[in-house]
Structure formats: structure tokens, C-alpha cells
């Protein structure tokens, strides 16, 4: 075993150079906030390491590049089901034992499934890094997809859908809005899936999906925290290097928004206590440079009590009782959404006018330097907040790595947002906030 470990280490060190050995650092005139090392195992697993000795903790994030978008037609809910099954045991770990092992040592864990990714993360005392790698590798190599577990999970997810509908009276209207905004069904169904599809789901469906996507060559492992790099590399190789790669993951076809006229629909909601509406614009693809400006526009309009729409609609005119929204990224597509709740039907119309007014102002008037700085500083603060706690930092690094931006520096990336000018804003608002919007009015019964 010791010889094997030594060989592994030699390979790792060489792979750091072979695969680019990317050190994400700030420019020389700035001290780096933290350093990042990336490398890849022979089986395709991409690994990110970032040391941080401030506390005796280590966080492990394992992200699979799969989400609800990858689900075959009429099999919605598969990705979320797999997320749940990942806690129900593998060859050497009993059902729910993963949670037990982590919480017993004072650690925390969770998982999240989105349209494009499934991310598992846990933070534990620094002495327990090997334990987490043992747990994560076991469910990657040998998840126990037994029919009884599939049935139990399916039943619990169906209950969760019912509960979600009860807890969130706007849940069904949000699904309907997504169907209008994203004509491609792969993009518009909810991550939780549909009750009908879940009822028809078989153990084979789940097994096929697992075999196809939950493989080292479709995953990124990120370790952040208090560890010694050499030891961590050794452990990663010990637990993951012998996991065989799966077949290459099918290329996900690029998708572009279709041109369409304005869409306005009404829906009668029996559960909703208040009327309201959704308003959406189809914007640039997630990797477009236009997103730097769009992100700042989001802050100008929506973030903070002094943002244009919060100030006007919630605190001054009081047309709306709730206002949320912003950029939504789904694999190859992005949209800019608004969701508003009003106390009366009349106020709904006024709220829509307020939003369109503010957008029109951004189309023609240069934003003041003070207001732009405010938006940028709020953005910067939120951007930096992603670096703590350790698990959030790991998730940030994984997402950054999986995005098209993985070869650049994340502080350089921040600078691109902070370099947005008033002219950029006028140009981008005129380009994307057009008449081709989608509106769904919620009427209460």
C-alpha cells in the first residue's frame, strides 16, 4: 500500500503541471485572498484545493455536473431523487449513516440540486478529512439503488410536492411562468419533478441516470480549510483514483432563446392570498460578458431598501407587499425575472407600470456615479460573502470551475463587474429589456 501511495503522490505532483496547475491568484499588486490549486485524476475527477488555517475545520464539496435539465422526457424529479438516495446507503455505509457519521463528530452537511448541478457538501473538524472522502467515494462507487429505497424516496418526494404546494401558494404559478419563459421543457419543469412522473419512475430509470452522470468524469471535488496539501492529495487519490470513469457524458446541446412577441397570460390562483404577477425577460447566455452589466442592473433595481424598485414600490408608493427577482441562470440560458405580490388587483397594474417606468429611465438616463457605486459596493460585498463559511467558499470555487470562467482569476472577475459604466447600462438595458417580455398575472379567486 505504501508503494502505491508514493506512486500516487508522484503522479499527483506531475499532474499539477500536466493539467495546468492553475493557481488562481490576484494580480501582483494585490495580496491574494486565498490560493487555489486544481488538478485532475486519471478517471477524470477534477479536484480543487484551497487551504485556510484560520480554524481547525475542513469542508468537502462534491459537485456532479447534472441537474433537472438532464432528465429524460417524462422522468422529471430524477436528479432530486438521486440527491435523496445518496444519503440512503452504499456498499459499506448503511442508510442515513452518512448523516450519522458527520453529525456525530459535530460536523454539518447538506446537498442541493439545481437545474444544472447536484452539490453535496459537509464541514467537519480538520482531523476528519479522510472520513468525508471515504463517505463521498463510497456513494460515488457503489450507491445502493434498491427498489425498496426507490419506492420510499418516491413516496416521500410526492409528499414533499404536496407539502410544497400547501406551503407556497404561488408554487404552481411559478411553474407556469417558467413554462412561458422557457419554451424548451427541459428548462421549465421544477427540480422537484412532477407527481405523475415520479409515480411512473422505475428502479432502472434511477440506476441508468446514476450510471450515466454520477461518475468521476462528471464531477468536481473541492476541499477547503485546514489541511496539508500533500496529505490531501494523497487521500483524494486513495479514495477516488480507483473509481472507474463512466462513459463520456453526452454533450448538452447549446440552446438559444427564441424570438417571440410579448406574452401576457392570466392565471386564477385558488390558494394565493394576494394577487400579483411575474415579469420576465430573456437575456444573454450565462457566459456572455453582458452578464457583468446585467448583474449590476439587478443591484440597481432590486437589492437593498434604497434600490430603485424597493424604494419606490415597497417604501414610497407602497404598491407592492413583496418584490423579488434578478438574474436566473439555467445551464445555457439566462433570464431576468421579477415577482411581485400586491394587496389589490388595482395595485398590480400600478406595480407593472412602476417597473416599466424604471426600466425606461435606465434606457435613456445616465445613472449617477453615487448610485452606480452603491450598486457595485453592494455587489462586491455579496461577492466576497461567498468566501465564508468554508462550505460556501467550496461551492463558489466549484461553480466558478464549472463555468466558462474557470481559467481566469476570481478577483479579476470581480473587477469586471466593478468596471461597468453608465453607458454599458444604457446599452444593455436597451438590448435585453425589450417588448419581448413575458407577463403572468395572478388573479385570486
Amino acid at each position: 500500500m505504501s508503494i502505491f501511495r508514493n506512486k500516487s503522490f508522484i503522479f499527483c505532483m506531475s499532474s499539477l503541471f500536466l493539467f495546468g496547475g492553475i493557481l488562481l491568484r490576484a494580480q501582483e499588486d494585490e495580496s491574494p485572498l486565498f490560493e487555489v490549486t486544481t488538478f485532475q485524476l486519471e478517471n477524470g475527477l477534477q479536484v480543487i484545493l484551497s487551504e485556510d488555517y484560520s480554524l481547525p475545520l475542513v469542508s468537502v464539496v462534491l459537485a456532479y455536473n447534472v441537474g433537472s435539465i438532464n432528465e429524460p422526457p417524462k422522468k422529471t424529479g430524477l436528479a432530486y431523487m438521486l440527491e435523496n438516495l445518496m444519503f440512503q446507503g452504499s456498499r459499506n455505509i448503511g442508510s442515513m449513516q452518512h448523516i450519522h457519521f458527520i453529525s456525530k463528530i459535530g460536523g454539518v452537511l447538506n446537498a442541493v440540486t439545481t437545474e444544472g448541478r447536484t452539490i453535496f457538501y459537509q464541514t467537519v473538524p480538520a482531523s476528519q478529512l479522510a472520513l468525508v472522502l471515504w463517505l463521498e467515494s463510497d456513494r460515488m462507487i457503489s450507491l445502493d439503488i434498491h427498489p425498496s429505497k426507490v419506492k420510499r424516496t418516491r413516496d416521500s418526494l410526492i409528499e414533499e410536492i404536496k407539502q410544497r404546494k400547501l406551503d407556497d401558494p404561488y408554487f404552481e404559478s411559478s411553474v407556469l411562468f417558467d413554462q412561458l419563459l422557457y419554451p424548451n421543457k427541459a428548462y421549465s419543469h421544477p427540480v422537484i419533478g412532477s407527481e405523475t412522473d415520479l409515480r411512473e419512475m422505475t428502479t432502472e430509470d434511477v440506476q441508468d441516470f446514476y450510471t450515466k452522470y454520477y461518475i468521476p468524469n462528471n464531477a468536481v471535488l473541492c476541499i477547503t480549510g485546514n489541511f496539508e496539501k500533500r496529505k490531501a492529495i494523497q487521500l483524494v487519490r486513495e479514495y477516488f483514483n480507483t473509481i472507474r470513469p463512466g462513459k463520456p457524458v453526452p454533450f448538452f446541446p447549446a440552446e438559444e432563446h427564441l424570438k417571440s412577441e410579448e406574452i401576457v397570460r392570466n392565471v386564477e390562483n385558488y390558494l394565493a392570498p394576494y394577487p400579483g404577477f411575474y415579469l420576465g425577460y430573456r437575456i444573454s447566455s450565462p457566459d456572455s460578458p453582458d452578464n457583468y452589466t446585467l448583474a449590476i442592473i439587478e443591484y440597481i433595481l432590486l437589492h437593498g431598501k434604497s434600490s430603485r424598485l424597493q424604494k419606490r414600490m415597497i417604501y414610497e408608493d407602497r404598491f407592492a407587499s413583496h418584490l423579488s427577482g434578478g438574474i436566473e441562470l439555467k445551464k445555457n440560458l439566462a433570464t431576468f425575472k421579477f415577482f411581485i405580490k400586491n394587496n389589490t388587483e388595482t395595485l398590480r397594474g400600478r406595480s407593472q407600470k412602476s417597473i416599466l417606468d424604471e426600466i425606461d429611465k435606465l434606457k435613456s438616463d445616465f445613472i449617477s456615479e453615487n448610485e452606480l457605486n452603491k450598486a457595485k459596493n453592494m455587489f462586491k460585498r455579496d461577492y466576497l460573502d461567498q468566501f465564508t463559511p468554508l462550505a460556501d467558499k467550496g461551492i463558489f470555487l466549484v461553480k466558478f470551475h464549472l463555468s466558462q470562467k474557470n481559467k481566469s482569476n476570481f478577483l479579476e472577475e470581480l473587477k469586471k463587474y466593478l468596471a461597468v459604466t453608465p453607458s454599458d447600462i444604457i446599452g444593455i438595458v436597451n438590448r435585453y429589456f425589450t417588448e419581448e417580455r413575458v407577463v403572468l398575472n395572478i388573479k385570486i379567486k
Partner: protein
Amino acid sequence: MSVTVRSRGYPFSLWFYLLILLCILNTSLFSQERFRRNPPFPDPLPELTLPEIESASLSNGLEVSIIRRQDLPVISMHLIVYAGESFSPDTLPGLATFTANMVNKGAVGLSSSRITETIETIGGEFSSETHPDYSVISFTFLEDYLDTALEILGKMILQPTFPRIEVRNVVRTMHYDLLGRKSSPAFVGRRTLLRILFEEHPYRNIAFNETVTRNLNRDELLSFFEKYYRPNNAKLILIGNLTLRTAVRKVSRYLNTWENKDIETEDTYPPQPNETLKLCIVDLPEEEDATITIGNTILLRDYDDYFPTTVLNQVLGGSPHSRLFMNLRESKGYAYFAFSTVEYFKACGILTIQERVRPNAIFESITESLNEIRRISSQVVPDYELEQAKSYLIGNFPLRIEVLEYYSSRLAAIQAFELGEAHWNSYYKSMMLISPENVYEIARRSSLQSPVVVVVGNIQELSPYLQEFDLQVYDPNGEFQYTIKKGETE
């Protein structure tokens, strides 16, 4: 291959059998690496090395402390004022909370919306929270804007205007917030418990309800602010990449003219623990389940009692591996969850158990909870269980403080109560020294076995299961209504 066994009557060669055996072993036992079968052993835990707390005082008595953190270009600033809810007059509970909520609502030349805008301009966030013993005004912002942040804080503290319209807004917000919480059985249960435990003590003010908001007014606010918001009754903590020298220089520039004043305050005396088991019920008819809140005060000799008390709580109900959860949920299946927490005030601690249970298991759940309290109060915790609890707490401590909000909150408590290194950099050591006898000693001299039990749920459904007790009925505001005698139902 000349070795055969045919001469002994075996049909196949020994080598053939060995080959078959090897194949079987290969598929069943050796098809995975040996190290995958069992969890690995942990490495030694690295030392906990937290930044030092450095302090200095301004000439007006304001103590300034810094904790150097270089990981992010953000500064977190916290003004602790010894004006917690126990300082509110008996006739005006909620006044301390109201005052803290009003701090950012206007200063000379700055409207509330202008303050909000300026805070957001520096990437900032502002909040206030009120504890029984002190209030904390918190402000986090990008590090380049320390001067701006201190200037705003200075204006809010030195030149507040408390505009009447903002007074009305804050009172309305407090009213609707408290009204909304009345439908939460966990909130109602805890508030009722605190009200009963602190009936004769200044801490009763922390259990105020929305009816108090009608009495809150600007005059009382001004008087409370004038009395307690003084530099000699406050401490300022700054967390970020800065030195004490810089902090003192800058704070002094903006807060040195803050006038000190003698404040007559009495030390909060310890409350009398509940001495006989008391069972109370609050009717929330729409609740399908029952929520049980059980608690009593713990008298602490000094702040070092924190450690054995925290271990006691961990063994009893601090996590899903603790006794309450294992018994009531995992073993008996009565509860959806069953946990305990311990809170530390200046004059006492309070141990609270909270459980959400099936209505038809309400009696058994209370009985089992009392049994667990009795067990931990009368038997020394076994070594293995104690070590497991300590290991959890030691492992979990850095996890809690890695979030800036909790980090700040812990530092605020350390500074407010002057807890010292044992509760900061020496946490591991302090915790490791706790013995089963230390835990037993805390349990023995507390009145844990005679707690107050508050049940929240549908009284008509629950009372038939609780006929073995005298039931004191409270309304959701925490007001006593009447008693259902033993053997009777609603």
C-alpha cells in the same frame, strides 16, 4: 501439475478446488479495496488558534476592542450597550428592544432613508438585537469605508432625532411581527415558559407580547436612550483587518464627544428556580401536533459553570445523538424532534427542552422527558457518553464561529460578560477538562427535576391525555386563564 488426489477418491484435482475457492473469495470479499470497508481513523485535531482580543478605553469611558481577521476586506462593528430588556421599566416591557430598533431611524441632517442609503453605499448591513442583559447595534461594511461607518454611527448615537413617523413605523412593525409569531407553537411555548419562570424577576420583560406596543412612545424612548446609551455603559468591538491603534484613533475622532454619565444600576439578582413540577397548556386549536417546552433556570456560581452545563445539555438533548432524541424519536417514535438548549444570562442559565410530538403520545413524551431529566440529575454520565458529548462540542465549536454573525455574537457575549480566554482561545482546553463529576455536580444543585412544562396545541384533543396533572391554562399571550383540575378535561 503432478499432484492429484484421485488416488484418495476425489473426482477433481486439489488445484481445481483452490481455483474455485479463490474465485469465490475474489468476488465476495476482495472485489473492493480493503480500506473501503471501515471508516478511517481521524488525524490529530489541529490547535484552535483564535485572534487575540485587544482592548483600550477612550477618555469618555468607551471600551474599544479589536479582533484582527485578515480573511476578508470587510469590517464588522458591534456596539454593546448595557440596556437589555431587563432594563425596561416594569410598566413598559419592550422598551429596550424598541430603543435598539430606533437607533438607525434618523439623526440630525440624516433621515432614516438617507441613513439606509449611506449604509448600502458602503456595502453595509445594519441590525440590532436585544438580549436580557444588553443590546447590540451591529454594522458590517467594506473595509475601505471605516471612516464613513464611524461617522454614521457617531451621528446616530450622538445626534439621534427619533422622528415621530419612524416611531409609528417601528411600533407598527414590532406589533405585526409579534402578532405573526403567535401562530408559532415553538415561539408561544418558549414565551410562556419564560413568563412563568421569571414571573417575579426583571427577566420577565423578555417575554413581552404585541399588546405592549400600544404603550411605547417617543418620550419613554428618549428617556431610556438618555439614561443608558452612554459610553461608560457601552463597549465597541471591531472585527477586521485593522490594528488597535488605528481603531482607537478613528473611533475617538467620531465618538469622543459622546458624554458619559453616572448610571445607577443594580446587579441583576439570580431568579428563584421553579421548585415543583408545573404543567401548563396553551390552546392553538389549528395545531395538528403538540409542542412541548420544558425548562427551568440553572444557578451558575461563575462563568466557568458554562462548560459542565453545556456538556450536560449536550448529553441530554443537544444533538440527534443525545438522549432525548434517541429515546423519544428513534426508540419510542413519539416525537418528530426532541432537543434541548441552554442559554446564559448574567444572573442565571436556562435549560429548555423543546419537542414536537404526536398528540396521542403527549403523556408518554412528557413522562419520558422527565425520566431523562431525572436520570441525568441522579446518575453520573458514563465516561464514553461524556467523551462523545465533549468530542461533538469541540468539533462543532469552530463550525459555529466560522459564520461571522455567530463569531460576532460570541465575542459580544464574551465582552459583555467579561468571560475571558477560557471561553475563546482556550475553549478546547476548558471543555476537555470537564469530568462526569463536574456535570453531575451541576445537575445535582439545579432544580432540573421540577421544571415548568408548557404544552401548545389543540386543548380539546390534548387535555384527555393529561388528566393525571393539574393543568394551568394560559392564552397565547402568556396570560394565565384558569386551571383544569386533575381528572377533568376541557
